[in-house]
């Protein structure tokens, strides 16, 4: 990979921006802003894809950028806003295990940890400061932050978005390994199916979140009194 002064530094900026967007995902409470940050994150991803395509003159990367733009920046956010209107819930206030502040501290530590471990293991790659090494660290830490988002937020929708940001992490890592295009396509397609399945279950089965559904069910429970006391 040849060193062209401005593009790699631009690339590094985009990677940092991705991490920032992941941090925002962890902290925002309002649902619509959550969806917007996710769309933003996908947009940065598209930018990275284009930059990489320019660096390595591989038009396949541009194709990937287009597909991600279509699906992740426009398609999925639109779909989620539609679902959100049906459920009519705006706020996701409750957190379990990790408050937003705690989540951020943990994610910083995680990034450091991932860097340390990967540098110990891939010591020869570090010296050439190859993009692959950088991509792997950012990708893995993005996934871990997505995982934190899943288990620290109680609303099912936020969990789904956490899952999608994890998926973005994989996509990011995939981009850096250029000869792997068609497989990432498959991955995108699989995740789209999962997303659709997930959200349909959500809208049919319950509206806001799993626990909310439980206690709503309890108030006007007809036949089993003892469950109401429990």
């Amino acid at each position, binding site marked *: 990979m040849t060193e062209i002064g401005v593009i790699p530094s631009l690339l590094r900026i985009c990677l940092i921006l991705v991490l920032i967007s992941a941090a925002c995902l962890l902290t925002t409470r309002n649902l619509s802003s959550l969806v917007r940050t996710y769309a933003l994150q996908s947009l940065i991803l598209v930018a990275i894809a284009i930059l990489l395509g320019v660096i390595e003159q591989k038009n396949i990367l541009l194709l990937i950028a287009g597909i991600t733009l279509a699906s992740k920046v426009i398609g999925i956010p639109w779909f989620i806003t539609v679902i959100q209107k049906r459920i009519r819930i705006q706020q996701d206030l409750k957190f*379990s*295990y990790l408050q937003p502040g705690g989540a951020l501290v943990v994610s910083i530590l*995680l990034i450091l*940890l*991932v860097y*340390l*471990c*990967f540098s*110990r*293991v891939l*010591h020869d790659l570090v010296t050439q400061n190859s993009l692959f090494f950088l991509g792997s660290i950012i990708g*893995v830490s993005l996934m*871990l932050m997505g*995982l*934190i988002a*899943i*288990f*620290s937020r*109680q609303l099912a929708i936020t*969990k789904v978005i956490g899952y999608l940001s994890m998926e973005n992490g994989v996509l990011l890592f995939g981009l850096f390994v250029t000869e792997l295009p068609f497989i990432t396509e498959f991955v995108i397609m699989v995740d789209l199916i999962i997303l659709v399945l997930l959200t349909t279950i959500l809208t049919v089965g319950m509206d806001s979140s*799993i626990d909310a559904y439980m206690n709503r069910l309890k108030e006007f429970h007809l036949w089993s009194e003892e469950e109401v006391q429990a």
Partner: protein
Amino acid sequence: MIDLFIPAVFFFLIASAIPVYLTGIRAWQCCSLLQGLAGVFTVLASASVLLRYTGGELLSTSLTPLFPVILGVDRLTAAFTILLGILTVAVCCYSPDYISRMHGGRSRDLLCSLIPIFLAAMLLVLLSRTTFAFLLFWEVMAISSFFLVLIEYEDEKTRRAAFFYLAMTQLSTVCIFLAIIQVYLATGSFSFPAGMLLSTLPGLLAFLLFFLGIAIKAGVIPFHKWLPYAHPAASSPVSALMSGMMLNTALYMLLRTVTGFFTPDLSAGLLILAFGCITAVLGVMYALKEDDLKGLLAYSSIDNTGVILIGTGLFVVLTATSHTSIGTMALLGAVFHAVSHGLFKGLLFLTAGSVNQATGTRNIDELGGLLVRMPWTGGLFFIGVLAISALPPLNGFAGELLIYQALITGLMQSEPLMQVVLVIALSLFGLTGALTAVCFVKAFGLTFLALPRTQAAKQAREVPTLMLAGPAILAVGCILVGIFSSQILGVLGYPGYLPDLLLISLLLTGALGITCAAVYTFASRETRISITWGCGMQDPTSRMEYTGSGFTEPVVRIFAPVYRTRISFSKEYHDPERCFVRTGTAKIELMKFFEEYLYLPVARLIDSYGETVSKLQNGKVDTYVLYVFVTIVVLIVIMGWLA
């Protein structure tokens, strides 16, 4: 003649298949018939092996390429298979009528089909010549006996007994499995090892694990607690087989480990001897306090296991200190006692089963006066009681006499330190013998003699003849084996070990004849029937008779530290100065030492672990994803640390 074993096994399997399709008394009878045939085959085959000094390899197949299953027989196996054959014939005469009088619908067919499987498994355990085959049939025996105990599953006590039994057999299988792994690693093959040294670590480990596994199954004291629950819970033919034969298969394996697998080692011998003495004494003491007839018999099986262990331990100690001739006498004593124990214990359990069916209860304090109402069962029980209390002409005495002689001659010829050990063993052995006599005077006296204590005992009727034929076979076996014991040993190639009991029994009958004739001719012949002399009491009722606990109260009082009896009494007084007692209660309860201090704490510990671990699964999505997160972080750290 040897190859009659394999058809016997097939007959067992066919017999077990019949009750699955047919049902009702017809099925049970022809199933028992086949079983009896298989038993006869086994007896013939093992007799031929015993007489011709030649064992031989029967059948060699392999379940999978790696695990050979070789069956073979030699004279030690033949001694135990002949016992198995006789017990099978006796049980199959006894069980059809017994099962038909039992309540419980289809479970009776299941019982009838499981008994032959249990017998076949035991036969194959005795015949197996590779460690894998032994473990395979050992587990089949364990599982089939578990289901046999579980036949009357409606009763809560049976279920708890079966569960306790399963837990202990699983533990025993773990020990035996580990021992076999150890042996495989040491020798590299599945055939029985020969002469492993106990000085090397694998040898010592293998021996200890074998001994532990067998101790659990044979009911050696610290591990015995399942036996007094499991054996009475099973139906009588099953408990006769379990007590008579299953304990012996475990002890057979101990004998094989001691004679074949390992070179005799002094410390191992002392270990076995110590366990034997403790089991013998404590076994009979716990038997004394039991009021349930079958519970009493179960504890006395533990006591007899202890006696056989003393014999085996003696053999190892004496051969280790190079007194091989006395050693073989001790070994003969152990084998002879094991076989005779199988006979008379089977007899006692079968007759106890008839008593249980005739009166509906097993509690000694609710029986009494059955000898007059059930003369045949009473007579057979009497022969069993004579045999188990080791009274001269019968087979119990021959076994114990061999062990006594080995102990005393060993005492004469060994060096001082060993003499102290042998004296202690001798005195404990004597104590066990006497306490067994007390226990079985109580068992026979209070169940069969004097006045019936309850209405049920009053209306007891004699059981049908077939239910007498089974125990009768065993009784005849006991008598013949006892009287011709020294001849049998002579024929087997060990003359002169036993005094000639045949001559003594002839003299006994002769003396009896002379006394009866003399008294008949010279003394008066009038007899008169009237009420018992009660120092002037008018009509003595059954409430004035001695009860079970009353009979053994002196022994319980003398050996109080062993029983840890807790005597508690409370008094309320009329007046503040506490002079006139208004009411009060006094209670003697025997504390179940092993259960409360060994088994329950362990069970509670495992339960609490189960509790904490199952909290892991608390049903919330977030926690599950948190587990995923934590594992991934840990793995990344490990990966980093690995490189």
